[in-house]
C-alpha cells in the first residue's frame, strides 16, 4: 500500500472517537471529504472471518508475505468494513415481467 494512503487511513481510522469533534459546524463538505476515509479495500484472497482479527493481523499486522499493513490493527472485526473481493454478478434482477 502506498505510504500516503496508509497514513491518510491512519488519520481517518485510528482517530475515531479519540478526539472531540469540532463544535463549529462547517459546510465545506469537499475539504471534509478530503480527509475522510474512502471505501476500505476488499479482501482479494480466502480468509477466516473471526472476532479477534488474529487471522488477518498475522500478515496485515506484520507485513508478512508483503501484505499491506493495517493502519488500524486495534480494529479486530475486519469484516465489519472489508468485504471479499473478486466480484461475480450475483444480484437480484429482472423479477417483473414487463410487456411494452
Amino acid at each position, binding site marked *: 500500500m502506498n505510504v500516503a494512503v496508509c497514513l491518510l487511513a491512519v488519520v*481517518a481510522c485510528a482517530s475515531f472517537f479519540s478526539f472531540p469533534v469540532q463544535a463549529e459546524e462547517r459546510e465545506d463538505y469537499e475539504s471534509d471529504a*478530503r480527509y475522510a*476515509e474512502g471505501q476500505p479495500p476488499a479482501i482479494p484472497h480466502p480468509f477466516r472471518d473471526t472476532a479477534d482479527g488474529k487471522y488477518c493481523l498475522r500478515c496485515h499486522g506484520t507485513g508478512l508475505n508483503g501484505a499491506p499493513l493495517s493502519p488500524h*490493527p486495534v480494529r479486530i472485526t475486519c469484516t465489519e468494513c472489508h468485504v*471479499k473481493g473478486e*466480484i461475480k454478478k450475483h444480484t437480484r434482477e429482472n423479477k417483473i*415481467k414487463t410487456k411494452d
Partner: protein
Amino acid sequence: MGGLSRRDFLKASAAAAAFAAAGASAAASLRPKDASASEGDIRWGKAPCRFCGTGCGVLIGVRDGRIVATKGDPQAPVNKGLNCIKGYFLSKILYGTDRLTKPLIRKGDTMVEASWDEAMTLIAGKFKESIDKHGPDSVAMYGSGQWTVFEGYAASKLFKGGIGTNNVEPNARLCMASSVTGFMSTFGGDEPMGCFDDLDLGDTFFLWGANMAECHPVLFSRMIDNRLRNPQVKIIDFATRYTRTSQMADQYVKFNPQTDLALLNAIAHVIIRDKLYDEQFIKDHVVFKRGKENIGYGLEDKFKFADEPKLIGFDEYKAFLKPYTPEYVAKLSSVPAKTIVELAHLYADKSRKVNSLWTMGFNQHTRGTWVNNLAYNVHLLTSKICKPGENPMSLTGQPSACGTTREVGTFTHRLPADMVVMNPEHREKAARIWGIDPKKIPAKPTYNATEMFRALDRGDIKVVWIQVTNPFQSLPNLSRYRKGARKGDGRFIVVSDIYPTRSTELADVILPSACWIEKEGMFGNAERRTQHWFKQIDPPGEARNDLWQTIELAKRLGYGSLFPYTYPEKEIWEEYRKFGEGQGKDLAPYESYTKARGLCWPVVNGKETTYRYVEGFDPYVKAGEGIKFYKNKADHYKAVVWARPYEPAPEVPDRHYPFWLCTGRVLEHWHTGTMTGRVPEIMRANPSAVCEMHPVDAGRLGIKDHQKVKITSRRGTIILPVNLNGRGKAEKGNIFVAFFDEGKLINELCLDAYCPISGEPDYKKCAVKIEKA
C-alpha cells in the same frame, strides 16, 4: 494482537494524533495524486446513512448526476468518520439494473407500463370507490421507519385529517412498538434520556438481545474503542445465541428464550435483598405499579387488550419480587444463581457507570413492553439513569423509526409529539394545526400492523398503499397474509418501491420511487438526533418522491387544501414543529438542520439536549430540581417501576417441534435485502440465508455442515443449508435464520403472536422441527 508490537501500535496512534491535530489541510497535502485528480469535479454533500437507526453521517460525492463515492463523515458526531460495510456500499444501492422507473399496472399476470396520470387516476378511483361503498376504514396506508419525516407526516395528515381513518401503520410496529410502550408506561414520554456519548463515557455495558456487532456496528465500535482506552470497561452480553457480539464481549450470559423477564426480576430481587438500591432516589423519583397479568398473545383476529395499572407500594413490589430468587430463576433461565447475584451487584456497583442496551430481542417479544419496563426498573432502583455515561438505551433498527414513526406518530393510535387519537384535547390540537374540524379525526384506533393485514385477509380492508417497506416478506405467519392479499373481491394493493420485491409481485399498481438523496429528506436516529439532507441527484426515469405521490393522491381525493405548499419539505417541517413546541419535543427551524450534523431534541433557543430530565442539560428541568421526569405529569413527574411477572412464550418447543427458531438480521444486509441485494460485493459476502445450528444437535440428527435440512413449523416449511460454525453460533435446542433472503421466506414459519400492549410480533421464538432434506 497478532505479530504487531505495542510499539508499532503506539507509533501509529501518535501519527494519528499528530495528523488529527494538524487538521484537514495537513492530511489533504498527503493525499495521493491520482485520488485528488479523480475527485476534482466531484460535488460533495452530506446525508445520514440510508440504513440503520445509528444514523451515521455520510459524505456523498456526485459527478454527472451519479453518486461516485461515499465516505464516513469525519464531522458527524455519531460516527466520526466510520461506517460499516452497508454504509461503505451506499454508492451502489441505487444502481441495480432492475430499478423501477415507470408506474406499472396489473393486467392479469403481467405488469404493464403506464403514465403517472393513468396510475394515479386508477388509485384515486379505487380509494373513492372503497370509501363510498365500505367507509373510510376500508382503505389504509402501510408505511415505514424509512419514510422521511415529511412522507410520514403527509401520510398521517391525509389519512387521519383528510380521509378520516386511523388506518395508518408503519413497519416500525414490527420493530420498535414495544420500545415506545415501554418508554410511555415508565416515563410518560417516548425515547431515551441518554445519547450515544454514553458509549464513550460508560464503563459497564449490559447488552440484552442485541447483536450490536452486526446490527449497530458503528455504535459497537464506539464501545469497543472505549474499552481500548479504559481497561475498566466491561461488556456483558445476555443472549440466546452466541453472536459476533458475544464473542467480543467480556462475558457471555446464555439464557433460555423468554426468561429475560425472570432474569431482570431476579436481578431486581438481589438488588432489594442485598440493599443495593438508592433509597433517596426511589423516594424522590419513583412510583410503583402493577398491571394486568395473563394477558394473552394476540393470536386471535381482532384481539383487544387494555392494561389496568394500579399503584402499589414499595413493600408490595418487594413482595412481588420474593419468588424471583436467583435459585428459582437459575432453573428457569439456565443462568447459574451465582452469576445472577454477581451481575446484580455489578449493575448496582456505585463505582461503575452502568448502561443497558437492547434491540429486537426485547422488542420483538410477546411481553415486549414488560421486558422494556423491567430493564428500566433496574436502572431506576439503582439510580443509574439521567447521568452522562449511565443510562438505559433502547437502540432503534430503522433510520427514522424515531424521527418519523414515533415522533410524527404514524401509528394508528398516535398523533405527532406523543399525542394520541383517543384524547380529545390531542385531537383538538392536531385539528387546529391542520386547519380541520376536530371531528374529522376518529377517536378510536383501528389496527396494528399485524391486524391490518388480517383485516386485508378478511376483506375488511380493501385498498392498501404500501410505501418504503416490504411486508410480504417481513410479516410473521407470512403465508396467510400473502394469500390474503390476492384474494380478489375488491382488494387493491399499491406498492411504492425502488426495486421489484416480494411485495411488488402482489401489487395491483407499482409506483417507482425516489430513494435517499434522490429527494430532500430528514431522518431521526435512536439518540433523538434529527438529520437533514438535500436532494443531490435526480431519480431515474419517471421515479418520484413518495411525498409527491401521497400529496398527489390527496389532490385527487379532494384534500389538496391540506397540502398548500410551494416548498413542501420546509413548510411541512415548520407546520410539524408546532406540535412539539413547549412539550419537551421542541425542534429547530428548518435552516438549522441543513447545516448541522443533526441536532438532538429538545432544541431550545438553538441548543440541542444530550441528556434529558436532568438539570444542567435539559432546559425543561429548572435549577434545583436535579432530576425531573417532567413528561409523566399523571404520576407527579416520577418514573414508574413496574411489577411485571415472567410469563411463558405462546409456543414452546415440544416433542413434535423440538427447536426454538429465532430470526434476525446479518451485518451485510439491510432488512429484506431490497437495496443491499443489488450490491454485488455484499451479495458475494453474504449471498443467501442459512440455518445456524449447534453441532451437537446436528450430530444427533446425522446432519453435516452445509447439508440441506427441512425446517418445519406449524405454519410452513423451508429448506436451507445448515451452518454449524458461522459468524453466529446457535445454542443447543435453538436455530437461527436471517430474514433478508427473498428466495427463502423464513417468516412463513414465524408465529404472528404479539405483545398485547405494544402490538409488536415476536419473531424470535416459535417451535420448529428439523429433518434432513
